[in-house]
């Protein structure tokens, strides 16, 4: 059977010392080096793009956390703001923001005079325009809240208009101002002086986190408050709806489902749902939850329902994978000592799969947090400047979400919104990082239990 002689091939390899590399060997080693280099280049490209992306986002977005403000003393003249003089709120509310606007610009002018800063061809009106249109409303609310302020001199700390803010951040320059109908180079020069005088300065911008969105005219006042709250509501709902259902479905499919056509269909279905384009879920939400079930548009509940359906397959797949990763020997062991199938699952399989389930869940939620397209279709892109109320009613109130806010700012004309959009991205990414780190920590913690 083992006729050696009939093996011509065995003489083919010349017997050589292992101490010298053959020419063939050198060629093969060169190919090896090349191949490895391709891999490193690919990794380098991937990491470089990531770095560039994060860099541009940071570069363009960090400035959103600072905002230019004008600080000057201002007398709240009672005659103008409370013409009847009886401090009746209803009467006082008849004075519109335009009135306050005037008071503000007057006070600024006065301060300029006092400090001896020349106007240099900038008209009074144009000086007034340096103050954000938001400031008047803010001031009005403050006065109405506390009529006792009338007649006193307070220090006004008001937002500067977006272009001035942009100028301080370098986004607006004298050259761009030439072409800009909203601001003139002269105004910028004046702003420069104001800055030198200490009237104008850039400071940490809490409002960015708390304000609602603002109209195109006043990007400086736009904030993430509603989006944050909306995202938070949605995540809460998704968590409550998705996780129990996802885990239950996974348990059934992995542990109990008989292998037949029906469960096969469910299985293919789930894998497929995980890959259905998100926009299709948007259509689903629009057609079913809004048009058919009549739930209110733009509400976080509808958003959460759509996102839940999208996330469910992800969670099911992650959960099933980690359930499957529990070695069958554990199940045999439990069944072997007389545990029922259900006991086996709940006593052994599920606890062992928990780290995987948690990680999958958190990662699923994280991607849900960043989902945009379907939300556009159910109207969450609408301009919402009221905070939704507290749950549970708040779930039905119109809201928006972080990524949608990013999109809607990015699609506005004013470059100041691009900055805010990037700022919002940073906030979003911080959330994602926190969730991911949370996933890792939770996982570690669970694993240490054994």
């Amino acid at each position, binding site marked *: 059977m083992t006729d050696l002689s009939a093996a011509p091939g065995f003489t083919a390899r010349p017997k050589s010392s292992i101490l010298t590399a053959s020419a063939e060997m050198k060629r093969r080693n060169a190919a090896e080096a090349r191949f490895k280099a391709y891999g490193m280049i690919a990794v380098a490209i991937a990491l470089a793009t990531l770095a560039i992306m994060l860099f541009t986002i940071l570069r363009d977005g960090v400035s959103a956390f600072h905002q230019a403000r004008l600080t000057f003393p201002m007398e709240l003249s009672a005659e103008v703001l409370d013409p009847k003089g009886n401090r009746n709120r209803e009467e006082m509310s008849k004075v519109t923001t335009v009135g306050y606007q005037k008071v503000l610009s007057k006070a600024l002018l006065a301060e300029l005079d006092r400090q001896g800063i020349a106007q240099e061809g900038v008209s009074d009106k144009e000086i007034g325009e340096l103050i954000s249109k938001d400031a008047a409303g803010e001031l009005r609310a403050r006065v109405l809240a506390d009529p006792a302020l009338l007649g006193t001199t307070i220090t006004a700390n008001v937002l500067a208009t977006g272009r001035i803010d942009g100028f301080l951040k370098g986004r607006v320059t004298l050259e761009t101002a030439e072409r800009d109908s909203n601001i003139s180079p002269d105004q910028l020069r004046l702003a420069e002086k104001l800055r030198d005088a200490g009237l104008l300065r850039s400071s940490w911008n809490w409002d960015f986190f708390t304000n609602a969105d603002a109209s195109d005219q006043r990007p400086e006042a736009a904030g993430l408050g509603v989006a944050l709250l909306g995202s938070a509501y949605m995540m809460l709902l998704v968590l409550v709806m998705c996780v129990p259902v996802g885990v239950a479905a996974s348990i059934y499919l992995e542990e109990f489902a*008989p292998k037949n056509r029906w469960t096969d269909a469910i299985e293919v279905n789930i894998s497929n749902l995980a890959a259905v384009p998100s926009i299709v879920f948007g259509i689903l939400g629009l057609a079913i939850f809004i048009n058919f079930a009549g739930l209110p548009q733009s509400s976080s509940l509808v958003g959460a329902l759509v996102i839940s359906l999208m996330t469910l397959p992800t969670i099911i797949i992650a959960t099933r994978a980690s359930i499957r990763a529990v070695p069958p020997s554990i199940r045999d062991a439990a069944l072997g*000592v007389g545990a029922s199938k259900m006991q086996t699952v709940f006593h052994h399989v599920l606890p062992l799969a928990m780290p995987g389930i948690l990680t999958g869940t958190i990662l699923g939620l994280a991607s849900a947090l960043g989902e945009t397209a379907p939300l556009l279709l159910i109207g969450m892109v609408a301009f919402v400047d009221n905070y939704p109320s507290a749950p549970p009613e708040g779930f039905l109130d119109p809201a928006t979400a972080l990524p949608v806010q990013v999109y809607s700012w990015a699609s506005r004309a004013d470059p100041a919104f691009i900055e805010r959009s990037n700022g919002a991205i940073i906030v979003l990414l911080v959330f994602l990082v926190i969730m991911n780190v949370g996933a890792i920590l939770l996982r570690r913690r669970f694993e240490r239990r*054994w």
Partner: protein
Amino acid sequence: MNDMTRTGLETETATAKISARGVQVHYGQNHALKNVSVEILDRAVTAFIGPSGCGKSTFLRCLNRMNDTVASARVSGQILLEGEDIYDPRVDPVQLRARVGMVFQKPNPFPKSIYDNVAYGPKIHGLTRNKAELDAIVEASLRKAALWGEVKDRLDAPGTGLSGGQQQRLCIARAIATGPEVLLMDEPCSALDPIATAQVEELIDELRASFSVVIVTHSMQQAARVSQKTAFFHLGHLVEYGDTGDIFTNPKDPRTEAYITGRIG
């Protein structure tokens, strides 16, 4: 010669614990077990040997209805545990498995403490009323499994941290803890090295004082070493069943002879 006590074989009272009668198993179209009838003696070790795929594991798993978990398996025939048919519809397989314990090929301790591993069975079957009773069961089981000495100071350590042989003995202790009458073992030593194997074999030999033990093994030597009765399976048939000493010195069936002498090609 018959009046003398044979050294290897001291089965005094040869009462049958399990009687299988005409057991057939199909996996879908595959007729895996064909009309197997055998009596498993009480307080003796019975070994199942045979070539791969001959149905040893299948038959073993019939004995505590672990085959119920395989959707495609159909079992017919009768298996009586002390005279009661375990395939009777009234029998709850979960309860049956508490009486007919099982130990698997690869040691599979739960990733819990040693104590919890052993205590699991008694807990789910509600065998104890308080912690003291549970402690007693755990200790007794570990002692029986010849593991108490090695682990008594670290009952809280994870069971998975033990060596392979210790893990397998832990699994045996776990099976013992529910107070079974029969212990089924499917190739319990095939994942162990020779020393751990010898320790487990030694344990099996001791266990037969209190249990009826059935062991599936690929190693004929192992069957020869630990068992008093040997059953040889071939292509789904039970070819020969008899005293281990006889099977290994003087088998009746030429197929048995061919297999144990290494001639089936």
